[in-house]
Every structure is written in structure tokens, then in C-alpha cells.
């Protein structure tokens, strides 16, 4: 009896240590094939102050950004099923309203993690958050440098959770709210990295504002780094 319990505790220790070491990583990129969408040109004539910030030139919208190497920016990649837990970091995610544009355009955040919303512009923005599971709020930020902190409480995926601005209808930002820390957004090279994953099989999903979702199953061994590619076609 004693032997069995010893053995069991040994296994438990071994298991615990192995999960500690065995954090895998999923890396990859998001590729686009087919005819690209026409980039949306935003005219800010409606608010002269915004227009002046851009010197009267129209600005390209963030809803479809095709990188020069054929990859896509602003794709939210996340573990859809198979992962849970993790403590929310106390370091806030920052959402900035810069030159009448939300930055970043797409981002992920953990449940319980603070979100800091800033206004970098010397003019009125209203941060109008809309969602199905996290309620709504609509805050006016009339002063440059204003900061507001918010926390989300339930997991939710875009496009049902997003930010808009009623003063500037072109402004949009999408947020994915997760109960685990395994998510990333593709950068200007179309790459992403999700690290710290324990060994196991996961369903990884990629979401793009205009092109919808793609998903694939990945089995990760202990300490392994896997390279995957998502392809969005049109």
C-alpha cells in the first residue's frame, strides 16, 4: 500500500514538473490567396480637426491590410478549445485613439485584465463599446491624454464585441476576450506566436474582420514548437 502511494506521489511530482518544462509554442503566419479586397479609403472631412491631423489626405482603413509578403495583418489567432486557466496579468492592455483611429485595430485581452483606453487626440472621442456578453458602455473622452480603465468579465469573440466612435463613424476596433492567455494578433509580417502552451491537442482558430474564421487542430508535444499556416482565400 505504502509502495503504491509512494509511486503515485512520484508520478504526480513527475507530471507536475513535466508540465512546467513542457511548455510548447505555436508559431505561424496567415497567408492570403486570391484577389485582394480594395482598401477602404477614409475621408475625415466630416471632422475638420481629424482631417487636419492627416493634412487633408485620405487614410487607408485597417479592415483589410495585405502585407507586401502576401500575408494578412490584424488577424486574431487563438486557442478555441482545449485550453483554460492562467491568471490575468495586472499589466493593462492599451487601446489608443490616435489621429482619429483606434490602435490597435484588433487585440485580445484576458478576462479580469485591465484595459486602458486613452485619447491621444486634442478633440472629442466617444468610446462606445458594444457586446453581447459584456454589456455596453459609452464614454466621452473630450480631453487629450484622458485615460479610463475597464475590465471584462466573460469570454467573447469578435465581431460581437467591438468598439466604435459615434463622432467618427469610421473608427472601429475589435476585441477578443479570453479566459486563457493563449492568443495573438498577426503583425505587419503576418506572423503570430502563442507560447506557454502545455502539451495537448488544441483547436486553433484565426479570425479576420472581412474574411471570417479558419481553424485547424494541432497536437503539441512537451517542449515542442510547431509551425502552422492559415490560408484565407477569396
Amino acid at each position: 500500500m505504502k509502495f503504491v502511494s509512494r509511486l503515485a506521489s512520484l508520478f504526480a511530482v513527475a507530471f507536475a514538473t513535466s508540465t512546467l518544462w513542457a511548455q510548447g509554442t505555436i508559431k505561424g503566419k496567415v497567408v492570403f490567396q486570391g484577389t485582394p479586397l480594395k482598401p477602404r479609403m477614409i475621408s475625415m472631412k466630416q471632422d475638420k480637426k481629424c482631417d487636419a491631423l492627416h493634412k487633408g489626405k485620405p487614410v487607408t482603413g485597417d479592415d483589410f491590410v495585405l502585407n507586401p509578403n502576401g500575408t494578412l495583418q490584424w488577424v486574431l489567432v487563438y486557442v478555441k478549445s482545449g485550453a483554460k486557466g492562467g491568471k490575468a496579468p495586472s499589466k493593462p492592455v492599451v487601446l489608443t485613439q490616435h489621429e482619429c483611429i483606434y490602435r490597435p485595430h484588433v487585440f485580445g485581452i484576458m478576462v479580469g485584465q485591465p484595459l486602458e483606453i486613452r485619447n491621444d487626440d486634442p478633440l472629442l472621442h466617444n468610446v462606445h463599446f458594444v457586446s453581447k456578453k459584456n454589456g455596453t458602455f459609452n464614454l466621452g473622452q473630450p480631453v487629450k491624454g484622458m485615460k479610463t480603465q475597464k475590465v471584462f468579465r466573460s469570454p467573447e469573440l469578435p465581431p460581437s464585441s467591438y468598439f466604435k466612435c459615434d463622432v467618427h463613424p469610421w473608427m472601429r476596433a475589435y476585441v477578443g476576450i479570453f479566459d486563457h492567455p493563449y492568443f495573438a494578433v498577426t503583425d505587419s509580417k503576418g506572423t503570430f506566436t502563442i507560447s506557454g502552451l502545455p502539451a495537448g491537442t488544441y483547436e486553433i482558430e484565426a479570425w479576420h474582420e472581412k474574411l471570417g474564421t479558419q481553424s485547424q487542430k494541432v497536437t503539441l508535444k512537451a517542449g515542442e514548437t510547431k509551425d502552422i499556416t492559415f490560408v484565407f482565400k477569396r
Partner: protein
Amino acid sequence: MDLFYNTRRLNQIFLILNAVAIVLIGIVLYKEHRPEWYPYQATYIQLLQEFTEKEYKRIKEEVGKDEEFKSLQGQLTEVSNQLGRNPRYSELSRQISQLRQEVSAVQTKLAEVRLDYLHYEDQFFWARNPTKKERYRQQLVSLKPEIEKLTKELEERERRLAEAEKAFTELDKERQELLKKIGDKQFQLTVAETAFRASFREEPSIRQIHKPELNLVDRCTTCHAGYDKSARWKEFIEGKIRQARRRNASPKEIQILQALLPHPRTEKCAQCGHVQDYGVGQCRQCGSRRLAEDPPILSKHPFDQFGCTSCHGGQGVALKKEQAHARDERHWLRPMLPKDYTEAACGHCHRYEMVIPGAPRLTKGRQLFALLGCFGCHDAKGYEKAVKIGPSLTHIAAKVSDEWLFQWLKNPDQWAPHSRMPMFFLSDDEAWALVAYLKSVSKPLTLPYRYPGGNPQKGRQLVRDIGCLGCHNVPGLGGPKSRDKGSRLLGNYDFGPDLGKFGSKVSDPDWIYNWLLDPKLIDEMARMPKMRLTQQEAADITAFLLTLKEPPGVQKVAFSPRPNLSHPELINRGFRLVANYGCHGCHNIPDPEAQKLTKIGKDLSTQADLDVHLIDFGGLVLEIFDTAPTYWDRAYRWLERKLKEPRIFREGLRMPQYGLTDEEVKALVTALLSFTGRDIHKDYFRDIERDAHLAAAVIGRELVMGYNCMGCHVIEGFGGDIWPLLKDGMQPPDLKSQGFRTHHDWLFRFLKDPTLGTGRQHSIRPWLQVRMPTFGFDDETVNSIIRYFAALDNQSVFKGFRTPYRVDPHLVQKGKPLFDQLQCLACHPTGPVQPGADVAQLAPSLNLAWSRLQPEWIFQFLLNPNAFQPGTRMPTFFPIDEQTGKHQTPLPEIMGGDVEQQVRALREYVLSLGAPKTPPISNGARQAKKP
């Protein structure tokens, strides 16, 4: 006979009889000791002990494990120690106690001297003798400096005390806050401990709620002992039930456990909107403690005041299940209502209300009762003044052809599947007779305008844009039906007719043209409002409507040959049919004979009190008696069948068929079961006679529904049918808080003439395309609508006349920088709109505020826009801080960051924009003092 002399034998017999008697007594005693309710109570108490112990341990453990609690306690000791070491702290507390003593000593002395002074003053006043008077005067003079000295001394001491106290609180602040935080946890622990201890004093007994004035003795709580417990108890019992199921416990045991579940009750989080079982104390989604019962049923109807049976029915005094629920007790006339119809009982006290939050089925049923025009044939209390729902038939011959009328009467559903006109199962002869009669009484019509011809394309655009689709469906453009049925008042039914085949129904272009220009030209009582169309617009729409023809080749109702419609016998038969089927209940028929007809149906005012033995089950008696599980269910089955297939019971029944869905039938049955004639205690009855607000709401609601205001606006959470068809930001407003929003006199002018005499189609948002129509209401109707909105927002119903609001120039000056910094003009234009601007982003001009909006509403709206206009684009500039629960300001440097002052100043500035430049009151009059 020998037997009686045989002692031995007799002894044996007595022994046996004795044994039998003892057993019987034993059984009786046992039964008496274990009545039906006993196991419920026994289980309850056993579980209560288990539960309270578990709760106590849970909280204790939580507190023990709670790092925060521990660290708080640690902090407290540390802070107290620090303070103990701080010489200033002890010095201050010593100073304070000394100063307090000194202050009270000086106060006493001052009081004594003042009394002396008063005494001498009195003496001086009454003294006749001049020497005495002089003496008193000198006394007074000598006392005066004494008083002054003491007063100064007191002031000085008080000042020092205040200073010392302030410094002390400053020092002690941290400790006090820690104490407060710890106190909460400690309190929870004490409560749990007390409950745990108390659970051991419980004994199985009969429990009851007694209200003598209601004649109510409810012993339901003897078995349903957990009725008032919270969510944790619910989870605990549910766990027990699962356990019992797993070990295949007897059904009786499970039944007992189920009876112990608490009354269903939910609460809603004010912060994130999460709904959960009542009584957790904390939102399970976001952790907020701002929770309120939603719907607020039990908080408004507490158990100890209402008992159980006043809402659920049943026999309260009974202690056996069958008798208490009384579903099969034919002699108890208020059985417990079945689950589907529980809400009916809400309507017993809420007799006159139509919208009852927390009773959605009853609300739906009462709305259907009114909107389907049930009161046309049936008398019902509260519907005495309701207006007929159908169109007037005064000029029917000028509008439609005989063939169309025949077809329509035969089967309305075939022409328009969702029309409110029911099917009467007329034979061809009957239908022709009705056509003949209606044609014979129809009045000739002279139309003032002639249709000049128009552009159907432009007409189509107009129909799409100006708001016709709030009431009418148009194929290809949508209509009220594009709104999901749940939020629509009428559900599946049409309010205005579907215009899909309108061109085939009305073929006279002049009729359409005149009707569009002003419906009152044709029908004095027309419900359709004037859309303020120009002649060109009306002509275009007419042209468009004429293109909406019935597609060829549609299966029509079989025509029987058209008889001679002017035959007097046929006409006479038509009149008898009208009288028989009650057409006059919904339509105005221009025949003096028809005007004299009365309602043909049964009075439904006391429908809920109907006893089963009075119901005529006709041919379905066996079917219903066999299928209904209990005695009283027979009544409910009969009602359901009657509404679904009104004529199935026997020949000669007259009620037409409405084609109701099952859910609509249930809603209507709930409404019917809510019409009771029982006497209800006056403190509990919501009486329209004594409650002006209620009366205003009831009368106004009928009007607002009758004119289908909900086709365009959201009112009381219903309607807004046209919203999905319009661009975001270009919709008619949600009228939440309307009674509080605008001035009553402004609303009066607006409802009388929505252009407000500006000559523009829209006075508030000139860029809108959808139009607020001119309804042509008379004064009383407009006032009723104003009172209705006022009543909804708990405003006084008649606000009286008002002095025009006078802005405070001082505050206006202070509000100007706020107004500029918050950049209100980014959305609210004050001048004409620039061409090319995206008008959907714009908000009403603030120049209108002074004449239109109530100042108090502006104040509240600025603090919390979404609460007063759900879904508004207006952002919150003064959000509530989650920690402190107070409003914050984005501009802390202005006016010391005082939110209230800032909002007042901002409001004053906004009001000043539209206020007349010269003071509205002459110099002689003064403005009333503000409270």
C-alpha cells in the same frame, strides 16, 4: 349461553379484543403523530441544520483563507501599533478630550449668564420704580461684557477642538477604513453563526402566514418550508435531489425535496446585466454588489403581506396536498392555477393595467384582447370606452368592388394572411347578402381632388422613406413584420393592411389620392394620420400603389353567381347577418338600425370566476372530461378550445375564427382568467378611481396603442417596428423618459402640429426623412397622451402652467468652457446643416432645448444618458466610478471638479442657447424661489 359462565373463555376473548384495541389505538396514535406534512418538516429541519453548518464553515474558511482579510488584520495591528507609538496621536486624543470638557464647561457657564441676563431684561421691562429700573439696567450693562467674553472664549475653544479633531481624523483615517472593511466580513460570519445556532431550536410544526384583513390563513409553508431561502439553499437542495436520484430514492422522498426548493426568484446586476438566482450577494459574472431583484415580484409582494394563495390560489388552511392545491376539489372555487396561467392572478389586483412587468404572458394576453377587438362583441370591465378597431364602412361602396368584398368576407386570410379580420364561415348566399346590405347603406362620397397622374418610382421611394412601413407591409420594401415577433405588440397580426395587392383592392385612383392627402376627407374617424404630403408626393404614391396588383393566376375563392344585389329580401337578410355576427362591434355601419344594435357576446368581466358545471361543453364533453387530468383543468381546456376553434362545440355558435397560435391562445386564456369579479381588499387593489397616475396610464395607453405609435417608437419597451428598415441614427426616438424629458406645453404644441409652425417637415432633426405624422387629435386626446407619458415617468400628471425658465447668466458663463471642452458641437449642430455631412451622426439642435426640454431631465440625462434613452449615441462624460460609486468628471480642473456643479453649469449654458435674449418676465414679477 354457557359461554358467559365460562370465565376462562371470556378472559381469552377479552384478551384478544384488548389486543386489537391496543393495536388500533397504536395505529391511530401513530397516524396522528405522523400527519402528511410531518416528513416535510422533519426533512426540512434536518437539511436546515446541515445547510447552516455548511454555510458557517464555508464563510469561516473563506475568511480564514482570505489573504485580504488576513492582511487587513495584519495591517490593522500594524497601523494601531504605529499610532500607539506616535506621540502626536496620543497628544491629540488627550487634547481633544480636554477641549471637549472645556467647551462643555464654557457652554454651561455661558448658558447661566445668559439666563441671568434674560431675567434682568425681563425685570427691567416690567419694573415701574425708576430706581429699580436703573439698578436692573446697570446689572444688564455689567453682564454684557461677561457674555461677550464667554462667547469669544467658546468660539476659540470650538475652533481649536475642530482643528484637533480634523488632525485626529486625518491620522486615524487609515485605521477607520481598515476597521470598516474588516467589519463586513465579521458581520457575515456572525450572521452565519447565529443561523447555525438557531437551526437547532427548530421543531417540526405547522407553520402559517396569517393576514386577517385578507381572510387569509396560508399553511403552504409547512411543506414548502424553504420558500424564502436564497440561491445557495436552492443549489444545496438541488444537489440533494441529484443525490437522491442517483441512489434511486423513492419518488416520495424526491417529492419532499422538491417541495423544499425556494420560490423562484432572480436578480440582475446593475453593472453588467447578468441575471442569476436571488440572494448570492455578489454578481457571479463581474463581482459587483449592486444587485436588484428582476423582475421585482417578491420585493414588491413580500410573503408576510401577501401570503401564497392570494397569488397562486388554492386552499390555504388545508394541510393535505390534494386539498391544499385543490385542483380536483370541485367545492373550492379558487383552485391553484396551473403553471401556464399563474400570471392570471397578477391581473386580479392589477385589474386595469395592460403592461405588467414580470408577467409577460398576461401582458401579451391583455394587449391581444385590446388589439384584436374582443371588446367589440364582449363587455369587459375597463374596456367600456375602447374605440372600434375596424375601419368605418360609411363609404365602402366607393372604395372596393362587390366581388372583392365577397371574396374578403368569405375568407380574409386568403387575401391577407395576417389580417385582424376573422373568418366567419359564411356560405356564398350569406356573403352576397352582406355585400348587398353594405352596398345599400353605403353613403355616396364626393372627392375634392382629382388624381393628376404620378411617378411610381418616386412614390416607391417615398413609401420607403417617410414612414409608411411603420404600419403597413409592402412587398419588396418590408414593414412591421421585418421586426421579430417578440417585441412586436401585435405579434403576427397586421395593424394597417398589407399593401401587397392594394392596387387590386382599390382601383379608383382618386380615392387613393384623396385618402393620402388627408384620410379625414373620406372618414372622419380614420386612424391613418395625415403625412403632410404635397400634391405631387401624394400623386406619386398613388401611382406606386396602383402598380401593386394581385399576380394573375392566383387561386381565388370559388364564386357563386352574383345574385341581384338590390333585392330587398337579400338586403334584409344581410342586416340580420350583421346583427347575428356582430359586425357592428368592430366597424361603424352607417345605418340607423345598425347603430341601435348592442354587443352580441357574453360579458367577460367575471370570466375567471366561471365554475366548471356552468360551462357548455357541447359535443366535446367526453373528450374534454377524459383528457383533462383534474376537475378544474376542464375549464382551462374548454377556454383553449374555444379560442382555437370557437364553433366546434355545437351548431349555431357565432364566434369567428382568428387563427391564433398556441402561445397566443395561452396568453388570451391568461388574460381571461385575470378578469375576476371577486372583492379584493382595497389596500391591495390597484384602483383606477383612486389612482390618477394609473388612470392616466390606462387611458393613454389605449390611445397610443390604438394609433399604433409603437409602429415607429419604442414605448414601454415594445414596438419600434420600423427601426430595422432605417439607417442607424435615422430612426424615430425611443420614448423612454418622454414624460420627464419635454415640457408638457411643448409636447402639446408638437402633437398638435409636429412641424411646430416652422414650415419644415421636421422640427427637431430636420435631416430625417421619416416623418412624424399629423394625427389631427382633439385637445382632450392630446392631453390624455401627455398625461400618459407623465404617468409612466411618475411625473405629476397635470404640471400646471409654468413660468418660462430663466437662465442664470452667472452659471452660463461658467458653463461655456465646459461646453467647449466637451465639444458638444461635434454632434449637436446649432446652425443649418452643412451639405455633405453624414447626418446620421448628428443629434438634435441645442437651440431647441430651452423651449422643449425639462431642465431636471437634462441634468439627469447628462449624468447617465443610456438610462433615459436606451442605446443613445450620447456618451457618458461623467461615468460612475466602480469603487466609490460616485460620478467622475473628465475636467477636474474646472469648478473644483465638482460634478454636480459642472453639470448644472453645462445645462445652464445649453438652455441659454435657445432662451430669448430679453428676460421673459417683466421687471415687476419675481421668479419663484428655487428649493
